[in-house]
C-alpha cells in the first residue's frame, strides 16, 4: 500500500526488537470477544486512478454550478476564488501542520491567525476576534452561551431575521444547558418589533444583517435598548462580503458579532466546512470561546506570536472551560485571511459593489415580471420574492431547465404555509447579465 513505508523486512526486524512474533501479538490486550473474526465486507485497496474513477463518477451525479446558472445563497455563497488563494492554502507547511502549540516552529500559522483576527475585527467594526469556530451556526450558539455567562442571565431572544440553522443550533445548545430561548416567527416582510421585547431578564438579543430574507436593518436603537436593560446585542453576518459596503455591526453597537466566513474563504462545498467568525469587545475577552493568538517577544526580544489566554480553554480548565472546542477551522480561516489580503480595502469594496449591482440588476428585471414581488426594499446580494404560486415546484421546474433558480423558503420552514410562495434569490459577481436573463425568462415561462 503506497501510503505505508514499512517493508516486510522492516516489520520483521522491528518485531524482533519488540520481542513478539507477529503484529497480531501486539493486540493481545484486546478481549477475544471483541476481535474482528470475519473479514469486513468492504472493498480492498485501490490504485490512485481507480479512486479517481469511482469518485469522479459519484461527483458527476451532481449538477454543479459551473454547469448551470446558480442563484443560491441562504448562508452559503458562490464567489470567485483567486488562483493564488488555492495555491497558498495547499502549501504543505500550512495544510499539514497541527495547531500551533510549539510557537518557535509555528510562527507562520500564528502570524496568519493574528492577521486573520485583525481583519475580522476590522470588517465587523469590533475590537477583538478569535482564531475561528466551526461555522456561523455554532458561533451563534457560542455567542448566546457567552452572553448568558457575561450577564448571569438565562434567557435569549432570537429575531425572525436570523438564519434558521443559526437559530436551531443555538436552541439546541441552550436547551441542553437548561437556558431559555424565545424564537420569533420568520419575518419575510421585516416588521417585527424587537425593542418592545427587551427586558431585564434577557441575556441577549440575536439578530442578523443582511437578514435571512435579505432585509438590511440598522440595529443602533436596538443596541441602546439592550444596553439600557443590561442585555447584550449579538449580530450575525452570514454573508461577510456585505461588510465591504454596509455600516458595520460594531458601529451599530453590537457586543458580539458572529458569522460564517465561507463566502470569502471557500467554494460552496455542499455547505461545509465553513469558518465561524467570532468577535467581541475587549472587556469580554476572558469570557470568549476558542483560541486566540497574541503578540509577544522571544528571548532575543524579537516579535513573535503565541496562543494565549488558554486558561479559558478545555485543555486547561476542563469542565469549567468557556467552550469544549478544540479543533476549529484553521485552514478555512487562513483561506479567508488570504482572500481578504488579496482583495485589500479597494478590492473588498469593489467586490461588494459588484455583488450588490448584480443583485439590483436581477431585482430590476424581476420587477418587470407578473407574479413576482420583491419583499425587502433594501438588500445586499440576496432577497426574498413572493411568487404567484408555490416556490418549491417552481424551483424544480427551473432545475429541469438546467437553472439553479433560488431556494424555496418552505424547505427551511415546512410548517409555515404562509411562506409557501416565497423564494430566496442571490446574485453575486459570478452571475453575469446573460445568466440573469436566462433565469428571468425561464421564471416568466414557469409562472405563466
Amino acid at each position: 500500500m503506497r501510503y505505508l513505508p514499512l517493508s516486510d523486512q522492516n516489520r520483521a526486524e522491528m518485531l524482533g526488537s519488540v520481542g513478539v512474533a507477529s503484529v497480531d501479538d501486539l493486540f493481545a490486550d484486546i478481549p477475544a470477544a471483541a476481535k474482528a473474526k470475519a473479514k469486513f465486507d468492504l472493498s480492498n485497496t485501490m490504485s490512485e486512478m481507480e479512486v479517481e474513477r469511482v469518485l469522479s463518477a459519484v461527483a458527476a451525479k451532481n449538477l454543479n454550478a459551473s454547469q448551470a446558472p446558480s442563484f443560491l445563497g441562504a448562508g452559503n455563497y458562490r464567489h470567485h476564488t483567486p488562483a493564488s488563494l488555492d495555491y497558498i492554502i495547499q502549501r504543505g507547511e500550512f495544510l499539514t501542520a497541527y495547531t500551533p502549540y510549539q510557537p518557535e516552529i509555528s510562527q507562520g500559522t500564528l502570524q496568519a491567525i493574528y492577521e486573520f483576527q485583525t481583519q475580522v475585527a476590522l470588517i465587523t467594526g469590533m475590537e477583538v476576534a478569535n482564531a475561528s469556530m466551526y461555522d456561523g451556526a455554532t458561533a451563534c450558539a457560542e455567542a448566546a452561551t457567552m452572553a448568558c455567562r457575561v450577564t448571569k442571565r438565562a434567557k435569549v431572544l432570537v429575531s425572525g431575521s436570523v438564519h434558521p440553522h443559526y437559530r436551531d443550533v443555538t436552541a439546541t445548545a441552550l436547551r441542553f444547558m437548561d437556558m431559555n430561548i424565545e424564537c420569533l416567527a420568520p419575518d419575510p416582510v421585516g416588521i417585527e418589533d424587537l425593542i418592545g421585547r427587551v427586558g431585564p431578564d434577557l441575556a441577549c438579543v440575536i439578530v442578523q444583517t443582511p437578514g435571512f430574507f435579505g432585509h438590511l436593518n440598522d440595529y443602533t436603537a436596538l443596541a441602546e435598548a439592550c444596553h439600557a436593560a443590561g442585555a447584550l446585542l449579538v449580530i450575525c453576518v452570514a454573508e461577510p462580503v456585505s461588510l465591504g459596503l454596509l455600516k458595520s455591526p460594531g458601529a451599530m453597537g453590537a457586543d458580539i458579532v458572529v458569522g460564517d466566513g465561507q463566502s470569502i474563504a471557500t467554494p460552496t462545498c455542499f455547505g461545509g466546512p465553513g469558518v465561524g467568525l467570532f468577535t467581541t469587545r475587549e472587556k469580554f475577552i476572558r469570557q470568549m470561546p476558542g483560541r486566540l493568538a497574541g503578540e509577544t517577544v522571544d528571548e532575543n526580544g524579537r516579535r513573535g506570536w503565541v496562543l494565549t489566554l488558554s486558561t479559558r480553554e478545555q485543555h486547561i480548565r476542563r469542565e469549567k472551560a468557556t467552550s469544549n472546542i478544540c479543533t476549529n477551522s484553521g485552514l478555512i480561516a487562513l483561506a479567508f485571511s488570504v482572500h481578504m489580503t488579496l482583495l485589500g480595502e479597494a478590492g473588498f469594496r469593489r467586490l461588494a459593489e459588484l455583488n450588490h449591482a448584480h443583485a439590483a440588476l436581477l431585482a430590476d428585471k424581476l420587477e418587470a415580471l407578473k407574479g413576482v414581488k420583491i419583499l425587502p426594499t433594501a438588500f445586499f446580494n440576496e432577497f426574498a420574492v413572493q411568487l404567484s404560486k408555490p416556490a418549491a415546484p417552481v424551483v424544480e421546474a427551473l432545475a429541469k431547465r438546467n437553472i439553479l433558480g433560488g431556494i424555496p423558503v418552505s424547505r427551511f420552514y415546512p410548517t409555515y404555509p404562509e411562506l409557501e410562495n416565497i423564494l430566496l434569490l442571490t446574485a453575486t459577481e459570478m452571475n453575469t447579465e446573460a445568466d440573469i436573463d436566462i433565469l428571468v425568462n425561464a421564471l416568466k415561462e414557469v409562472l405563466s
Partner: protein
Amino acid sequence: MINTITTSGHRALQIEQPLIFELDTGGSTAVDLPAAPKVRTRLGDLRSDKPIGLPGLSEPEVVRHYTRLSQKNYSIDTGFYPLGSCTMKHNPRLNEKMARLPGFADIHPYQPQSTAQGAYELIDTLAHWLKTLTGMPAVAMSPAAGAHGELCGLMCIRTAHEANGQGARKLVLVPESAHGTNPATAALCGYRVESIPATALGRVDINAMRAKLSSDVAAVMITNPNTCGLFETECIEIAQAVHAAGAYFYMDGANFNALVGRVRIADLGVDAMHINLHKTFSTPHGGGGPGAGPTVLSAALAAFVPVPFVVRGANGFSVVEHAGTGAAQKSFGRMKGFQGQFGVFVRALSYILAMGVDGLRQASGDAVLNANYLRVKLSAELTPAFDGICMHEVVFDDSFLKNTGVSTLDVAKALIDEGFHPMTMYFPLVVHGALLMEPTETESKATLDQFIASLLALARKAKQGDQAEWFKGSPRLAPRRRLDEIQAARKPVLRWRKADVNVAVTKQAAE
C-alpha cells in the same frame, strides 16, 4: 539581543516578514474585477463609505508574504511529528484533488435534492464504511470535530434518558486521564462531572468506577485505547457495569486509528463513539482544523440522531432536515449548519477507498508496531510510564530526568533544534512530566531510527549533569527562541493597530 549578523535582519532562508498591515502600499489590490453594471442601488441608508483599514497589496507581494510565513512552520510534509493523541499522519494529495472536483466543490447544500444525488451518495457511502468498521447500526454525520462528536453522543444520551423517564440523571463519570474536551463537553450538556482514578497499570480503576455508579449517573466516557496508549482490557466489564446501572457507555474514539479493521466497537458494549476523520482517516489538520467527528450510535440511541441525515428510498437519496416529524420524530435537533463537513467527508472517503479494508488493517498494525519500536528503543535511556506492550502511542514519565535540572519541556525544545516536532508534553495528567509519542503508520523505520538516536543522545546529555542551562536555552536554531507566554497573557495584544492606537488600548486591556 537582536540579530546583528546581517543588515536586513534576515538569515538566509529564514526571512523576517512584517504583518500585512505594515506592508500596505495604499489602494493596491491583487484582485481585478470587472466593472459593475449601472443600476439604482437599493441599500437604504445602510451604505457606509468609512475606511475599514484593510491593507492593499499586489498579487506578487501577497504570494511572497504567505510563502515566507509558511516557511516558518513545521509540518508533516517536512518532518516527523510524533504528537501523542494528535495522529499526525501523511495526508495524501489525492484527497485534495478529489475534494476539488466541481461535482463536490461547486455544489450547494440547498440545491434541489434531485440535483445532488451524488453528494448524498457520498455521505451514505462514508456512513456505510464507518458503520461496518465499527459494527454499529447508526451514525450521526453532522458533528464538526471530535469535541462536537462527543457533544452529539452526550446529547443523544440525555435525550434517551429523558425519553425513558430517566431525566433526573445528572452525573457523567470521566477518567482522570481523559482529554479536556470530555469534561468540558459533559458540562455543556448540562451534566456534573466526577473523575475516575487510574490503576498503577494505567487503566480505569473498575472498582472505583463501580463505587461511583448510581441512579444519578447518566453516562461514563472512556477513551479507548486510552491517553496512556493502552487498551482498556476490562472494557467489556466496564460496559456491562455501566449498563447494569442504567447508564450509557460513551467511548471517545480519538484513538480509533489503533483499532481499525481489528476490533468491532459494537462488541465492546459501546453506545456512542465519535470518529475523528482528521486523525484516523487522514484529512489534513490545516494548522488547527477543520475536522469532522461523525458519531456512531447503538440501537438504543439511534432514534435520537441529530438532523440532517440522509435516507435511501425507492427513488434515490433524500435528506431529512427537520426534527420532530417522520424519521426524525425523536431527533434531538440540529447541532451544525447545513450538511456537516462535506469537504472533509470527500477527503476521508478518498483515503478509505485508497486504503481499502486490508490497507486500513495494515495501517493500524504498522501504527502499533511503530509505537512499540519507539517504546523498546527509547527505554534504553527514557523511563516508560507503564510496562508492557502499548497500542498506537507510548508515554514516558520524567523520572529519567530526576536531579538533572532538565524538564520535559526542555527536552522537547531541544528536539526542535534536532529537526523534529516535539511529542505531546505533560499529558496525560496521570503521568508525571509525561512525554507522549505517536509515530503513526506513515513513518519509515529510518525516520524512527533518526528520531530515536537524537532523543537518546539528548537524554544522555541531560544525565551528564550541569546541562540544565544549555537545555533551557533551546531551541537556538528555530525562527524564534522561546517566546514569553506570560507577557502575552498578562498584556494581551490580540490584533494589530496603528502604533499610537495600540499603546492606549493595550494599557486599557491590562487595567
